[in-house]
């Protein structure tokens, strides 16, 4: 490599570095007068901060999207959950600005305010709006917020009546925490699983937990979710009472509990987990992130969702074996369908495969899973059993030849060389041809859309 090439590369990295660190957008702050400058400012911030989840085209399909719950917003539809506008209406600029500034609680959407200046935040909102044609054609239909009713025992009692009248308990439970709910399994407009918010945990209210935030949720509805707007079903006064009631049923969060309360709370969680091991298992699997490795990924690191949990991600662990992540679906031929519970648990906690061979302690972190409590281990197995079968045959680990192995070990142990592991894109397993052609078709489609 020539000196010039090196200099060029260094320049490129410098540029990327500035972009990644958002320094460039900050320098441009203050140029609010010029619409072209605002647009390019919004775009540059969006492309350095937002694309990981929302995707370059704003479709909510960035590389991280497939593992997030709830999914990131698809901006192209112009459909937003947390607004101060009528059900079905586009949100106001203030609504969007608020979401970007303070984030959405209990989701991966953070509060950007400490990182992005006011003008830049506005530029991002303008850029986000530009993804949907709705913002050029429609105007937001604001709802009228009636005069606030301060909280009082009478207002709370009246709110309880409204809670019953509007049948909130059908989804949220009579206690707000799901007790006696008709059902708590829902899907949103995009087909993703959704559970009703636990109303006793105000710190998880995505749109905020002040009485006014709660009031807005009843009156605007949460578009895209089964939560309707109750505007017209109750008076403004009743809505404020209801908001006061919802605030009143909030329980103590763990960070304010005393010893007895913490112990009681944790034992309550444990007994609830025992009653519903599949849910507990799902929580553990989702939070540990099993699907990060047990699904094949694209060049940008995004998951190939048709093969979620079906393995096929190749890891080159030289000088150790090259391995392909296993198919965790319940497919009998290529997945865990024919494994016994004991075999799954032995692999999870001891790193011993079904054929008796040993795994090294990474990247599959079995020494960590050995610390799982027996109930949690059972719960994980119970959840894995519920994953629908997907055929994807995983090849056996490939050992390097003995000379190559010794040479690699010599480099690490004697020459103290840092030998990196590599992860490769694409499916290294053998899936059904039909599955692969579906994946190809979808990839071509999204690549085509990307070019437009």
């Amino acid at each position, binding site marked *: 490599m020539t000196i010039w090439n090196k200099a060029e590369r260094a320049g490129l990295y410098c540029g990327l570095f500035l972009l990644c660190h958002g320094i460039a957008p900050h320098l441009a702050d203050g140029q609010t007068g010029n619409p072209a400058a605002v647009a390019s400012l919004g775009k540059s911030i969006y492309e350095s901060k937002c694309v990981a989840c929302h995707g370059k085209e704003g479709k909510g399909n960035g590389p991280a999207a497939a593992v997030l719950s709830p999914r990131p917003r698809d901006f192209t539809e112009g459909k937003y959950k947390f607004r101060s506008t009528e059900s079905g209406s586009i949100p106001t600029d203030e609504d969007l600005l608020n979401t970007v500034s303070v984030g959405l609680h209990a989701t991966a959407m953070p509060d950007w305010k400490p990182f992005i200046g006011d003008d830049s935040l506005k530029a991002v909102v303008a850029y986000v709006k530009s993804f949907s044609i709705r913002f050029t054609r429609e105007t937001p239909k604001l709802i009228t917020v009636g005069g606030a009713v301060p909280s009082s025992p009478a207002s709370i009692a009246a709110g309880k009546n409204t809670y019953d009248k509007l049948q909130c308990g059908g989804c949220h439970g009579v206690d707000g925490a799901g007790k006696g709910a008709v059902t708590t399994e829902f899907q949103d407009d995009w087909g993703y699983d959704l559970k009703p918010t636990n109303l006793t945990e105000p710190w998880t209210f995505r749109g905020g937990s002040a009485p006014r935030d709660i009031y807005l949720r009843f009156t605007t509805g949460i578009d895209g979710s089964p939560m309707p707007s109750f505007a017209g079903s109750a008076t403004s006064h009743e809505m404020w009472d209801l908001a006061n009631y919802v605030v009143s049923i909030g329980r103590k969060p*763990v960070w304010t509990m005393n010893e007895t309360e913490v112990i009681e709370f944790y034992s309550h969680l444990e007994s609830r987990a025992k009653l519903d091991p599949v849910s507990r298992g799902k929580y553990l699997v989702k939070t540990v*992130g099993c699907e990060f490795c047990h699904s094949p990924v694209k060049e940008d690191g995004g998951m190939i969702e048709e093969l979620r949990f079906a393995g096929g991600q190749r890891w080159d662990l030289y000088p150790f074996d090259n391995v392909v992540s296993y198919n965790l679906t319940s497919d009998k031929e290529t997945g865990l369908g024919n494994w016994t519970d004991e075999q799954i648990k032995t692999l999870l906690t001891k790193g011993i495969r079904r054929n008796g061979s040993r795994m090294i302690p990474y990247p599959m972190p079995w020494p960590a899973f050995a610390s799982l409590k027996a109930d949690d281990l059972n719960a994980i197995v119970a959840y894995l059993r519920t994953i629908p079968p997907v055929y994807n045959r995983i090849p056996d680990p490939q050992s390097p030849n003995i000379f190559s192995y010794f040479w690699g070990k010599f480099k690490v142990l004697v020459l103290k060389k840092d030998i990196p592991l590599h992860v490769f894109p694409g499916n290294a397993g053998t899936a059904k041809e039909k599955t692969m052609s579906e994946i190809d078709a979808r990839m071509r489609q999204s690549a085509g859309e990307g070019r437009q």
Partner: protein
Amino acid sequence: MKKILKWIAIIVGILLVVAFFAFLYFIPPFTLIPPEEFTRQTVEAAPSLDGITDPALRAVAERGKYIATVNDCSGCHTPLGDQGPKWDAYFSGGGRGTFKGYGTFNTRNLTPDPGTGLARRSDEQVQRVLRSGLLPEGRVAHYRDMPWAAYSNWTPEDRYAVLVYLRHLKPVAHRIPDDNAETATDDPTAIETLYSLDVGVWPDSGAARK
């Protein structure tokens, strides 16, 4: 007499060569030691929380410890030597990963060391990384290098428990170099490269620990 010495020298020489190859073959001793030994090391490296006087806080920290252990934070955040993790530097960072086209991230020192660790970060800053991958300097970590997209699924109460646990780790002075913008993976067909040795600096001793 000379002949015997010569033979002894030859035998010793052969033994040394065999021992050297055995060393190369078996170290790190992944196949020599039973699985339970790995688990024992992992569990014993974690700090005892008995010293926390507030019993409520202790209970929360214990839950955080359980979550952090089974999620294997240590897998990336405990520095690696050529023969395995440096357990006495538990959770003090030093790993390195590059995601193609995105950047290089060094795993940070999560211990409450005032100069090099999380004592410099607010509760909000730490929880923001766990929830959204948004680092204190405003950059978003790649979701595969730091799996925040999985940890965003933690309930806020579980996330808080992890935070409390991190606040009660044993402080280790281990300076982690700033992330850099290297976006090329070592193998051009790979999307991700994870390095196997510690990139941190030890301000105390000046030398890397075993």
